[in-house]
């Protein structure tokens, strides 16, 4: 306990940075759950592909430490473009291949979970076997740096050297921490406004509330669902960039545990609720860090899940309730 109090700010800041990543990934779960009422089990793989896109673009552009500010900004901007494009693409493909055929056939909801599990395996394995995939298309010579050791960790050069900006309670808050936390909140404000004000956002909310009435009012359901997947994928791409900036290491199965955590965050905040996802992500990140400071790092995940169970017992719809799909709850 004393350990936690002594390093309170250190745990708070790191908790918030990882919480920001959880929150952004949680948005994807929450959006899809809102419109389709299903757990998009393969969303973690969407995130994982984003981390690789971010990594590859930095490798491609020859990113390294100690570059000028302008160059670093360019690299980070390209990371966002690449990761968001990749994750968005994968998410849309996923909807097309794994979910749309099931919807057309009126499959029972549980089977969508199986399809999602299958898609998740396929995506993770494609990444884990990327050296093989490259050799099938005869590109293994050109792509050697990108595909080698496909089963192992792939690390990214630290393009932003962590520099302390200011010190709070003995913890040096670095530029990376600030970028991640502020950036995540900014992206989420934009998303919130998008869902609230834009035409497509209205469509998403309408389908979430009542798909049949929405269809009668002229909302194209398939299109809205596709946009929802795209938006969720783009958010996962942003999360992937922050993750690579902060952690810097990824692997073909890096998405799995993070996905489970992000889904936990979504449920924690109230699934289907965008602001809930933000709150849930931060609460989960903080609770995990504080908890591991008190009872030891090895219990970190246990703390997260125990918290989830406790919150669901006392507030069964999550912290903020389910707003996107309230009418059908």
């Amino acid at each position, binding site marked *: 306990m004393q350990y936690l109090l002594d390093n309170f700010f250190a745990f708070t800041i790191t908790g918030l940075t990882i919480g920001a990543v959880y929150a952004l990934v949680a948005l994807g779960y929450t959006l899809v759950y809102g419109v389709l*009422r299903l757990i998009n089990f393969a969303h973690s793989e969407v995130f994982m592909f984003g981390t690789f896109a971010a990594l590859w673009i930095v490798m491609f552009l020859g990113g390294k430490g100690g570059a000028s500010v302008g160059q670093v900004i360019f690299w980070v901007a390209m990371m966002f473009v690449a990761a968001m494009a990749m994750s968005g693409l994968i998410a849309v493909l996923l909807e097309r291949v794994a979910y749309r055929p099931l919807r057309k056939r009126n499959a029972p909801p*549980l*089977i969508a979970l199986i399809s999602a599990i299958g898609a998740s395996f396929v995506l993770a394995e494609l990444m884990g076997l990327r050296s093989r995939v490259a050799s099938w298309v005869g590109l293994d010579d050109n792509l050697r740096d990108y595909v080698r050791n496909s089963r192992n960790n792939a690390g990214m050069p630290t393009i932003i050297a962590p520099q302390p900006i200011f010190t709070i309670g003995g913890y040096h808050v670095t530029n990376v921490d600030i970028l991640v936390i502020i950036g995540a909140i900014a992206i989420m404000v934009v998303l919130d406004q998008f869902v609230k004000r834009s035409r497509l956002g209205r469509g998403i909310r309408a389908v979430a509330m009542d798909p049949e009435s929405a269809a009668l009012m002229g909302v194209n359901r398939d299109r809205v669902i596709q946009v929802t997947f795209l938006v969720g994928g783009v958010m996962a791409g942003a999360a992937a960039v922050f993750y690579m900036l902060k952690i810097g290491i990824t692997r073909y199965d890096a998405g*799995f545990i993070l996905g*489970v955590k992000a889904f936990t965050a979504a449920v924690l905040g109230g699934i289907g609720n965008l602001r809930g996802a933000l709150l849930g992500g931060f609460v989960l990140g903080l609770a995990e860090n504080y908890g591991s400071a008190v009872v030891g790092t090895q219990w970190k995940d*246990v703390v997260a899940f125990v918290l989830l169970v406790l919150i669901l*017992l006392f507030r069964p719809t999550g912290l903020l309730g389910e707003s996107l799909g309230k009418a059908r709850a």
Partner: protein
Amino acid sequence: MSTAPAQTLATSTKPNFKERVNGLPKGVKIALWVAFAVFLFLLPLLNIPFVTTEGSDFGGVLFTVATYVLVALGLNIVVGYAGLLDLGYVGFYAVGAYTVGVLSAEHASLPWLLAVPAAIVIAMISGVILGAPTLRVRGDYLAIVTLGFGEIVRLTLVNTQWLGGAQGISDIPKPPGLELFKVPSIDWSSGAPVIDLDTTSTFLKFGITDFVPYYWLALIVIGLVLLFDVLVKNSRVGRAWEATREDEDVAELMGVPTFRFKLLAFALGAAIGGLSGALFATKSGFINPQSFELILSILFIAAVVVGGAGNRWGITVGAIVVSYFPERFREFADFRVLVFGLALMLLAIFRPQGILPPRRTLRAKKADERQAILEEGEASA
């Protein structure tokens, strides 16, 4: 349903496979069942070409398949009968395995015959402990809470030295054997079946190299659990589960104490999960937390849903698909998981009710179609 137009009720008069089997005289039916059981018992010794796994010991593979079938039977009670999505079933499996480990090797030396019932009871209690608070939350949340439970169990095993920590527990004793007689196996290497008297399995000698007796043990257990399953499903309890699954509010209004029945389903499912965990621990002789990864829960759920949740034969097929095919196609080593994932997706698209859906689902689907015809007219049918 009786008001449906006559022409839609007209079904083909040709008897299907099931009707034909049911139409056989009772004696023949019993004989068929006995023959099937004998075939299952002899399967590891027949070494049928193509079916037998090349790379890994076939007896061991069959044992694994049998534990999956057992797990699927337990999970079917929770998912198929009561309609509760449990993504943390591996937790109960681990509880069963570790109970046997702790009681017979790590901290006590109970005989196997006492440790296994203890494992069942403790897994059941853990099911009640998990279910009592969480079964009140809505279905989708139950999925994530149980997922969390599975992880909590695994992490607790990793981090608790009293339970062996990351090394786990070794030297778990074998069940008592009998060593009555030896069963020869069949050798196909010459192209035709030849009885091979050198490679034998002793009837009920639980050794460390020959896994066939463990498979026999698992088969017997499966038989008992199946019997139990049939009895429970056709009882008042089974009907209460069905009512709860279809519409909880209506069931409650009709006087079904839904919460208690859900808890019962959870406890029974947990008990069977614990039993299969106990068998797993017995066969492998050592257990560590790595044997109880989250992915196993996902595979268990896949077995139940792929086979057809709610149909005990369907989920048996599902369990075989999920556990046997990855072993059989080991030569694809690297691509196993990829192919498995593709297969799951294709199955979901082309067989959304599962390989063998329960009769009730088929009936409901037909009724829906009739309803659609009534509502929209013959033209759109």
